[in-house]
């Protein structure tokens, strides 16, 4: 991860402190996991929106398979793992996070950043349909138990003849019940009694991190933007997710905030002269993590937001905070709101990959306005049908509202799905179009 968190431009101030923090949070994660295992802690594999704060209240050490695969990809080491999984029987046209992970299982758990301990528990959730297949695969290799947290998925249903609030209460009770069963599972796994105060303290830390995170991601509204939402933002997010609900996480984000404030004070950003501001939809192409944003930087374009920034705050409301006076219920709400029609999806935000119908188009327009963006880049990922399965459709609808959109196709982990020349051509053409559009607009303003 080292090279990824360096500022992309000599104009930005040094980021050594943040870099070290991210390094310890992400790079040393496996070494920390082994230390935890030696102390007798149990290892749980969970996905990035899983019930992290709850698991941590049992001293369970967390390994994030998605982050592990992303690390392989960012270090340009994922392909041999993916190919190992393909030799075993996995198809190239499925999720490469999963196939990279299977490659790890088939490589005696030897990850480029260290050996990964096997799980004592897999925490499955139903955010995406691949998760539960992935959990079953992990179980097949490691013979460990799975706990499944089933999120009710309610589409935007405002026109339906029923009481949405009553339904919400029913759904919340369903999730609370599952959380209580998860608590019993964790008690049995660890031999530790559930400590509500400790859980509440973790939620409090998560609240503080959430508030800091929301401040950070809004700072790209400054001109120039103090950081690139893809190049630097995803690193910040990796650290924030890994450290969620911890004191270290709070310190980590405070450092990032301080660093960014310093850049704002100096008036510097990722490029010497910011000419264009763009939104990035979907996850990055980790095997070419620097290359793609830098192609935009060359034209003076900076990414100012990605909806994936909602991940450290559970992907729902901006500034959604846990209510510490009713921790289990509030926790259930945060786990389920991402997919619930009751979620008002207040702007400026956009739920990743989730098409509830209609509101998402307005939300993207509001994001454009909030961040003063000139266009949107949709990154359609081979691996992730949830994130990118509707991007081409959105391109149709959002472009009709006058928004300049570029659609790129590649993958989160598999480098074979990236074509540098083709990507560069498309980016160059898009940036030329944006420049022309800007020129014409300034000329028409001048004439007026």
């Amino acid at each position, binding site marked *: 991860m080292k090279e990824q968190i360096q500022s992309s431009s000599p104009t930005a101030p040094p980021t050594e402190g943040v870099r070290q923090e991210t390094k310890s949070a992400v790079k040393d994660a496996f070494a920390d996991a082994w230390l935890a295992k030696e102390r007798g802690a149990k290892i749980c594999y969970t996905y990035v929106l899983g019930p992290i704060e709850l698991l941590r209240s049992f001293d369970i050490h967390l390994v994030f398979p998605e982050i592990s695969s992303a690390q392989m990809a960012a270090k340009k080491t994922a392909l041999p793992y993916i190919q190992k999984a393909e030799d075993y029987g996995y198809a190239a046209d499925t999720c490469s996070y999963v196939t990279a992970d299977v490659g790890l299982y088939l490589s005696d758990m030897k990850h480029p950043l260290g050996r990964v301990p096997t799980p004592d528990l897999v925490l499955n959730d139903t955010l995406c349909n691949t998760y539960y297949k992935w959990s079953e695969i992990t179980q097949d290799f490691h013979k460990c138990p799975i706990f499944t947290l089933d999120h009710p998925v309610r589409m935007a249903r405002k026109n339906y003849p029923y009481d949405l609030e009553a339904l919400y209460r029913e759904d919340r009770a369903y999730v609370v019940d599952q959380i209580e069963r998860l608590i019993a599972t964790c008690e049995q796994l660890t031999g530790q009694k559930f400590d509500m105060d400790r859980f509440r303290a973790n939620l409090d830390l998560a609240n503080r991190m959430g508030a800091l995170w929301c401040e950070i991601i809004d700072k790209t509204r400054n001109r120039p933007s103090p950081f690139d939402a893809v190049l630097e933002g995803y690193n910040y997010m990796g650290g924030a997710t890994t450290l969620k609900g911890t004191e270290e996480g709070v310190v980590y984000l405070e450092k990032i905030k301080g660093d960014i404030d310093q850049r704002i004070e100096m008036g510097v950003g990722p490029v010497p002269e910011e000419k264009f501001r763009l939104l990035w939809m979907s996850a990055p192409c980790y095997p070419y993590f620097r290359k793609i944003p830098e192609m935009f930087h060359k034209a003076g374009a900076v990414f100012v937001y990605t909806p994936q920034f909602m991940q450290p705050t559970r992907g729902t409301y901006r500034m959604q905070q846990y209510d510490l006076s009713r921790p289990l219920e509030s926790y259930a709400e945060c786990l389920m709101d991402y997919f619930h029609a009751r979620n008002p999806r207040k702007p400026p935000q956009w739920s990743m990959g*989730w098409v509830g119908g209609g509101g998402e188009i307005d939300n993207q327009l509001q994001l454009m306005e909030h961040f003063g963006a000139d266009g949107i880049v949709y990154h359609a990922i081979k691996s992730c049908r949830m994130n990118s399965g509707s991007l081409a459709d959105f391109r149709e609808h959002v472009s009709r509202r006058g928004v300049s959109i570029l659609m790129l196709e590649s993958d989160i982990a598999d480098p074979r799905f990236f074509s540098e020349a083709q990507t560069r051509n498309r980016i160059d053409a898009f940036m030329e179009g944006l420049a022309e559009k800007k020129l014409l607009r300034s000329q028409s303003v001048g004439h007026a």
Partner: protein
Amino acid sequence: MLDKPKPTTADIVKKCEDLFTDLSFAAAREWKEEKPGRIVVGFLPYYAPRELVHAAGGLPLGIFGGGDQLEVIHGDAYYQSYICRIPRSTIELGVTGRLDFVDGMMFPSICDVIRNLSGMWKIMFPTKGSRYIDLPHNFVDDLGGEFYRSELKETCDWLSGMTGRPITDDAIRASIAVFNENRRLIREIYQLRSDQPWNVPSSELYVLLRAGMVIPVEDHNRILREYLDSVREQTRPMKDNSRVVICGMFCEQPPLNLIKSIELSGCYIVDDDFILVTRWENSDVRLEGDPLANLASAYLHDSKSTPPKYEPDEAKKGLYLVDSVRKNRAEGVIFAMTSFCDPGLLERPILQSVLKKHGIPQIAFKYAENSGQMQPIREQAGTFADSIKLWSGA
């Protein structure tokens, strides 16, 4: 008055083939026009609570993509490259007006593409109903069962919103009864095919099932009875084919030629996952008591295992295929999965490993609903059939 002559097997199959290849859905349109106030509600594979649409006085209409005859022109504009074909052709059906008579659509939680398609449908066809059917991943009665019951209740409310009439418990019970009959007849045909695969070709069985997706269930029951009567009266030549189970065709549909090619290559298909909604429940759904709770319970405890469905019990994982092989005296399994199908392709290696442990031969290939080149598949399946005959101890 002379009795109406009994239809021959060929007549029945021809009628069914005409029904399933008709992408204007003329039969469903006619049904709707016969009586004012009728509704037609589409549903995608692999499972949907058809009984509720029927109880609302509606016609559940299976939308299983555009097949190999539909040229997808508009649909490709709504999807990037790495997406399977069924959502593209479904959109094509929508934007070309072929579904203009459909009042609402149900999208089951089979995968992320279909989940998102439910939202895209709302944006593209704002005057039509679009409902995502969230199936439980928790199989405990008072948790996942309660949740699913609530989902079914909400589906009833949604349907009532279209008809302006509430759906009574008695109406749901009556609908469950008629669908129980449908499932019984289909199970009977499956059993007959397993016993005498030379008499019940899978290409015939497939079109019989597909026809049932576009006509009222009562009509389908009549056709199924006629087919059973007809096929029992005839004897077709038995071939020295290998008996195989097909796995992977639960969502995007195979071209009919693909099924024929597998059969022509020397395989008798003795079990499969074609049109699972027609036999999702393994036995009759109970009629006594709360009908929604009965449907929920049948889903949780008495439904088919298939790649998109989460299996919470590791010990049972994949055993349904082994059971199917044993029960149907099959000699091997053909995995035929759709390109870009996450649930199928991520499940396949686990299933292959289970089969391997049980010494069951297998092959795998991929297809799309518009696959045109059957020769490689015929060669692969033929070689598999030959290898079973030559070397398998089965």
